[in-house]
């Protein structure tokens, strides 16, 4: 037994040492000094395994698509992009940092990530320390951009909460509102907190305040019962579409049919395989991106994405990631970044450039600009689901 174990330990140690050495071999790039003049390495980090894998995969796919498009067009002033993407399992501690470190070892010069807020919070101080330009496609908490090197493509949560409450009040959609939100998720509770304070200012009445956690996100019967018994006319769902699809189904079978209102997390609802679209009829949501929008840019993106990835419809995460890469490309062009510049030098240039009168028209918004605080300014679009498709709600 002893010997078998020793052998095993030895062989594992050998593997370890081997890979350590190969990792060391690459370390010329890992120290942030920059490498080949013609290649800029963009590092992405997000969950590719585990329960949140759908978000990370969407970001990875869309980022790869954007990178390929840029390279096919000859790069940015001859500088080609290379995407390296690591799995962080949406972990909030060591695994997120491991993914970040793996990216550093692969010579990352600009970071597109991370996908989820929890992982992002675990690495923001590391990116600050290393002075890496960080543009997160989808980590939306306010804390994520507290350092001056970090920026967001997506809305900051409080903005969405405020916009939702304003929209509901302005258009007189409902007065008695129930909310179901994910208490263990920064995105969801962030939106909810600002929604609540804005709602009370606008004279909206929150009659039921219900939450759930990531450990118990399939059974919503207790929450729906509470909303139903409080006679809420509208159910506000600042959550992701997977849970929302369950709430819609469970509300229907409980014989409860209020109006539904959600944020950008609901985007993707219609693309859940085998989802009964009639359940979503009349659901309103504020989203920066809708896959069936009629504009050319969106259609081109959706077509390319579907062709490349098994006919899957891109969601909001994918659109944010695509925009993220394109924003980086524009900034690289503006600042004439070369692949052999150091990570820190690139960061200093990019973070000045992005706040200095830079504006970008992307899939998720027209005329997006960034403030010193790292937040993006763009308008959420209100859409309603009608006949199984999005249609614009006029303000």
């Amino acid at each position, binding site marked *: *037994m*002893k*010997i*078998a*174990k*020793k*052998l*095993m*330990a030895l062989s*594992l*140690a050998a*593997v*370890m040492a081997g*890979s*350590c050495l190969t*990792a*060391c071999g*690459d*370390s010329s790039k*890992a*120290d942030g000094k920059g490498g080949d003049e013609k290649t800029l390495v963009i590092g992405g980090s997000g969950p*590719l*395994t585990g329960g949140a894998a759908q978000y990370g995969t969407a970001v990875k796919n869309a980022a790869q698509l954007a990178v390929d498009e840029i390279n096919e067009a000859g790069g940015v002033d001859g500088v080609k992009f290379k995407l390296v993407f*690591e*799995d962080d399992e949406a*972990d*909030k*501690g*060591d*695994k997120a*940092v*491991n993914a*970040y*470190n*793996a990216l*550093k*070892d692969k010579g990352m010069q600009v970071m597109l990530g991370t996908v989820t807020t*929890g992982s992002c*919070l*675990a690495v*923001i*101080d590391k990116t600050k320390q290393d002075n890496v330009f960080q543009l997160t496609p989808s980590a939306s*908490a306010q*804390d994520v951009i507290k350092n001056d090197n970090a920026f967001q493509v997506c809305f900051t949560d409080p903005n969405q909460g405020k916009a939702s409450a304003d929209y509901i009040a302005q258009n007189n959609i409902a007065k008695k509102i129930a909310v179901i939100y994910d*208490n*263990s*998720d*920064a995105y969801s*509770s962030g939106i909810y*907190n600002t929604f*609540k*304070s804005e709602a009370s200012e606008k004279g909206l009445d929150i009659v039921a*305040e219900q*939450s759930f*956690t*990531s*450990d118990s996100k399939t059974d919503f019967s207790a929450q729906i019962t509470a909303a139903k018994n409080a006679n809420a006319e509208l159910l506000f769902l600042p959550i992701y579409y997977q849970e929302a699809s369950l709430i819609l189904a469970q509300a229907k079978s409980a014989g409860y049919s209020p109006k539904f209102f959600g944020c950008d997390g609901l985007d993707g609802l219609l693309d859940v395989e085998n989802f009964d679209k009639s359940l979503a009829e009349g659901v309103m949501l504020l989203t920066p991106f809708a896959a069936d929008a009629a504009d050319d840019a969106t259609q081109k993106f959706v077509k390319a994405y579907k062709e490349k990835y098994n006919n899957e419809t891109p969601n909001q995460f994918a659109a944010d990631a695509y925009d993220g890469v394109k924003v980086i490309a524009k900034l690289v062009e503006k600042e004439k970044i070369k692949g052999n510049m150091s990570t820190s030098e690139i960061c200093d240039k990019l973070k000045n450039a992005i706040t200095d009168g830079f504006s970008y028209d992307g899939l998720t918004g027209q005329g997006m600009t960034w403030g010193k605080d790292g937040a993006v300014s763009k308008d959420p679009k209100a859409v309603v689901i009608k006949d199984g498709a999005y249609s614009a709600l006029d303000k």
Partner: protein
Amino acid sequence: MKKKISPMTRKSFVTYGLLVLAFIAVEILLNTGNISSMMKGLLVPICVYSILAVSLNLTVGILGELSLGQAGFMCIGAYSSAIFSNMVKETITEPMIRFPLAILVGGIFAAIFGLLIGIPVLRLRGDYLAIVTLAFGEIIKNVFAALYIGYDSAGLHISLKSQGDLKLAADGKMVINGALGISGTPNDSTFEIAAVILLITVIIAYNFVNSRTGRAVMSIRDNRIAAESVGLNITKYKLITFGLTAFLAGIAGVLYSHNFYSLQASKFDYNMSILVLVFVVLGGIGSIRGSIIAASVLTLLPELLRSVNKYRMLMYAIVLIVMMICTSNATIRGFFVRNAQKFISLFKKNKAQPEAVKEGE
């Protein structure tokens, strides 16, 4: 020291020696810059998981009871020390003073909870004890995830409902923000401190095993009724072991929480407890050195498998199953041992090594 060193003492000194050698090797790599960022980032977690594994081994290997609540004690240590550090980080700016205090705070809180939980739990046995420790771990995690603590000029506010429920004044500061946890903990954990604590943990563990108390605990493991009949106070010895395990796990939690900017309770779920149990079982129940090796290897393994990309967690699962079958199935193990012995005897003629005394006994 006597002329003849006991096998146990020799074993412990070999382990200390190996640890010190490993430490020196890593230090050399660190100082010459020949180490990848990833390995550098893994150093503290490896120490943390090793401490967890060694401490759980005291309960599983020495006391012989299966505990699935290790993450709960780690959570208490992590949270209590992070709260402490966040409260005093403006008053005590010197990490060399602040961090040892935080370690004490985390360890002592975890130990207190370990004793409190141990009193009811240790009455149970076997799988029932395991499930109750798992339940306690989950309760600890859930309570911390539902806890909101903030302070302002009016004092401390605590709520179990939501951030808004705290009604903080404008100058208020959040300490624990529910499921979103604690952020802003000073990054005081360094590899050097973690390594020293690991060494101390190992010293404590070996000395515990070789002490009078340790022998009493092992006699309870081997035959509870016999131990009871010679007048050993079963509850007392069980509690001591459980408390010590919790204390060390709490310290591991302190190292963990002070290694990251933010900390969320959901990290300390049953998966973490099970992970630590995997280290202990794979390293060999009762073997302290084995625990450290298994913790290090299995912490590195998923990272080394990054090159196989989306297959990596699948590979990890397969490696786990195969390792378990190879080390636990008598036929397969026998096959390996026979061949290994042949292999070794090719090099070492006439030097048949006697099988070492089973560790931990």
